[in-house]
């Protein structure tokens, strides 16, 4: 049990170790991966035959794939047979009984972020239902959504309740063998979210995993599928600004978005998984495949992300712009402090006529972190009138960090207009001096300058999220200057 003297590192590591504890008598599977493990996962989830077959095929394809090594990140080799691929949510006995048992350092962070008291308990992994009843809130929302026909449930539930929809769309944006981590996810994914917005419906509220009752402990292999039918609109929020308690080190999630004719999906992420301590010990490996398919004419998919957590981030939310006049957007703030490594960016594949895309990426590196933007803009021969503008800026804080840019542009159509701009800068002594002489402390001055640097992205976030993101940025960069 945690004592007050334990620091954040040991707290998180302890939990991480517990995540791998294998007690066959309980609900976890032993570490290791073979077809039997996949059959067991599928059986426990009571999945129909097609899901099992799908998982097995993914597994067989995964066996033939090689782990990618092109990203600008370094980490010890992962032994995939050391991981337990199914562990049921922790029982309440294992959890801290109350906030008194939680590391004070973590609580201090919550305080700085202005997280309400009852939420702190949930985030710190305190057995939630005893403290805060989220069920009633969620039920209210669910009724409201059902009125307009929106389906919003866990992936497992969708497999049971809406197998036809799952079967129609699953893996159509991120195929099973898309990449190493996506294939692994397809084979063993634990759970995730499923959203279907019917024709012509504008989702009456912003959807967030937060309000899904069984969102807790979806595990390390999450899978999300969002379908916006013709003329519909949805805004989806993923993640949370507060540091999340998590037991698993490797996260390989997959997100698939489908926007049909005239539909719009806005997907916002705030990612703040445990980044490891200042020496790079511990921390989450976040290897995520996110892709949106603008399948119909005039559809639009917009990705906004604020990435401050994880020891290693490997993530490229992408858009396939297939429909005529479809629009793809990517707004990103990626912060890497201490020993964090981030290799993130986007892909915009222009396939339909008059498609357009916008990329705004802001990378901030501090401490000894490495932060890379990697992006692809591809204009296919048939994509007449394609338009892209990419702006990609890096801010360096300190002498030992790295900021890197790897943009790829592959243009196969002469009517395309593609522009790419990138700059790199640091917080200048002049800027700091100006703020200091106005009586602003150094830390506040840096926060102010950094927030200004990220403004273009923050304005794309839903209001409450934007406010939280700013606070998060300040906390993430704490101690980076001076």
């Amino acid at each position, binding site marked *: 049990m945690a004592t007050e003297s334990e620091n954040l590192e040991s707290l998180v590591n302890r939990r991480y170790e517990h995540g791998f504890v294998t007690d066959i008598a309980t609900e976890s599977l032993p570490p290791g991966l073979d077809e039997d493990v996949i059959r067991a996962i599928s059986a426990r989830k009571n999945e129909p035959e097609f899901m099992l077959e799908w998982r097995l095929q993914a597994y067989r394809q995964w066996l033939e794939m090689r782990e990618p090594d092109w990203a600008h990140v370094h980490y010890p080799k992962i032994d995939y047979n050391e991981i337990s691929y199914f562990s049921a949510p922790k029982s309440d006995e294992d959890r801290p009984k109350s906030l008194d048992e939680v590391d004070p350092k973590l609580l201090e962070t919550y305080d700085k972020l202005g997280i309400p008291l009852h939420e702190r308990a949930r985030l710190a992994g305190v057995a939630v239902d005893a403290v805060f009843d989220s069920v009633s809130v969620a039920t209210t929302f669910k009724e409201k959504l059902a009125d307009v026909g929106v389906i919003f449930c866990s992936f497992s539930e969708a497999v049971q309740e809406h197998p036809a929809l799952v079967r129609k769309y699953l893996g159509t944006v991120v195929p099973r063998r898309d990449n190493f981590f996506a294939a692994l996810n397809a084979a063993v994914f634990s759970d995730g979210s499923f959203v279907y917005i019917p024709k012509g419906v504008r989702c009456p509220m912003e959807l967030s995993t937060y309000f899904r009752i069984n969102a807790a402990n979806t595990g390390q292999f999450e899978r999300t599928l969002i379908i916006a039918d013709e003329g519909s609109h949805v805004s989806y929020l993923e993640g949370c600004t507060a540091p999340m308690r998590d037991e698993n080190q490797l996260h390989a999630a997959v997100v698939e978005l489908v926007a049909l004719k005239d539909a719009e999906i806005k997907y916002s992420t705030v990612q703040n998984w445990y980044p490891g301590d200042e020496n790079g010990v511990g921390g989450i490996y976040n290897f995520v495949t996110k892709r949106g398919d603008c399948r119909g004419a005039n559809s639009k998919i917009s990705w906004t992300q604020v990435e401050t957590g994880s020891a290693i981030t490997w993530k490229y939310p992408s858009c396939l712009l297939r429909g005529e006049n479809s629009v793809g957007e990517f707004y990103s703030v990626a912060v890497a402090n201490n020993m964090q490594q981030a290799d993130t960016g986007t892909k915009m594949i222009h396939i339909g006529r008059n498609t357009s895309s916008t990329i705004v990426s802001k990378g901030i590196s501090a401490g000894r972190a490495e932060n890379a933007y990697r992006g692809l803009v591809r204009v296919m021969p048939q994509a007449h009138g394609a338009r892209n503008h990419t702006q990609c800026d890096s801010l*360096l804080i300190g002498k030992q960090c790295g900021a890197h*840019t790897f943009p790829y542009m592959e*243009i196969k159509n*002469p009517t395309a*207009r593609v522009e*790419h701009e*990138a*700059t790199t800068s640091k917080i200048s002594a002049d800027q700091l001096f100006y703020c200091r002489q106005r009586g602003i402390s150094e830390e506040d001055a840096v926060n102010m300058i950094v927030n200004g640097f990220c403004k273009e992205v923050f304005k794309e976030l839903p209001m409450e999220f934007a406010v939280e993101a700013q606070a998060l940025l300040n906390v993430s960069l704490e101690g980076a200057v001076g």
Partner: protein
Amino acid sequence: MKQASLSIEGLRSVVEALPPDNLTPAREAALAHLGEHGIPTLRDEDWKYTDLSPVVDISNRWLTAGGGRQSPDTLLARIDEITGSIDANWLVVANGVVLDPTFPADGGNGVQVAKFSDAPAPLVFERPLADFNAALLQDGLRVRISGTVGKPVGILLIDQSDGDASVSQAWAEIDVDANSAVELIEYHVSQGNADHYANSVLTLNVGANADVRHVRIQNRSTRHVQTGRTSVSLGRDSRLDMASYDLGGGLIRNDIDVDLSQPGADITFNGLYLAGEGQHIDNHTRVDHRVGPATSAQEYRGILNGNCRCVWNGKAIVHEGADGTDARQANHNLLLSEKAEIDAKPELEIYADDVKCAHGTTVGQLDERSLFYLRTRGLDKRHARQVLTHAFAADLVSRAPVDAARSTVSAIVDARLADLIEAEFAEELVS
């Protein structure tokens, strides 16, 4: 698509048949290294847009036929024509054979020339294509510049290929002493109806406070393949102004590596590539800023027409501690045909914080409004396109840093652009 591999056995037997000389150890080392690593394929990140199958294919055919070398004699008239057109002291490598200099090159006028057969240079390869070059190398050029040299020094790399497929190598090392100034011209040209692969390596070491201007012209036959590596290192407070013009060639791949490990160095390097039907021109540049302050600026421009593909990959690496670095990259492309493709990749890797780094890339076509403006002034469609295309290229032509070479560059660019635009209209007539 799987790329065939280079016949290392064939290569070994050709290398072993060469008469022993003072390059023998270097050849053997290069052969061993190449045998270990092989020729890069599309799976290598640095080669993902350029398929070296033609290099492998031509080389294998040539090796199977015994790896012979054609006499440079058939080229003498062409050599005279070219060296006569640009006023410079010319050094010539013809079909891989280093010819004797025709000017006094004993160092009296600041230019000292030696052959590898007399004084081998410490060859640095460790790159597959440089290995391939070194494994077959029989001779090379060592040039040393001291003081301010009035007349430009030209190096002509010329090849003829008739009958069977052929391969040639050229290797030149240029050392510029401290406080010296020189203008260099590097001219690649080829003729003949058979397949040919030319492989060149140029090393340029610029001494402290030296001032070097360099123009590179590549106007090979569109049947021919060339890969070239240029390694540059700059001394303290030295300056290098370089411009590269790729106007011909079938498959062309240029690698420029710039090493800035002394403070105060300043390099500008620009490039223009014009690609028409069937051409593939790939420029890879890499600048290593190891200390600051130092400045690097590059601007590449391309005009593409017909079924062709161009690649530009600019990489700037600012190493830890290289504060005061100013690195700029720009790449602009005009796509004139539906079948043309450009792959651009401006990369920055930055490990220091007091730096200024920026890159910009654009891809587009001729501006409709500018065309309309010219049409309202009475220019016909073809003429209007010519004017705008020329203007796009002229900027880089006018910046050719060696005066003596500028008119030649300008003439070839004009002729090439006329061809490209002609082809565009021919295409329109057919469709």
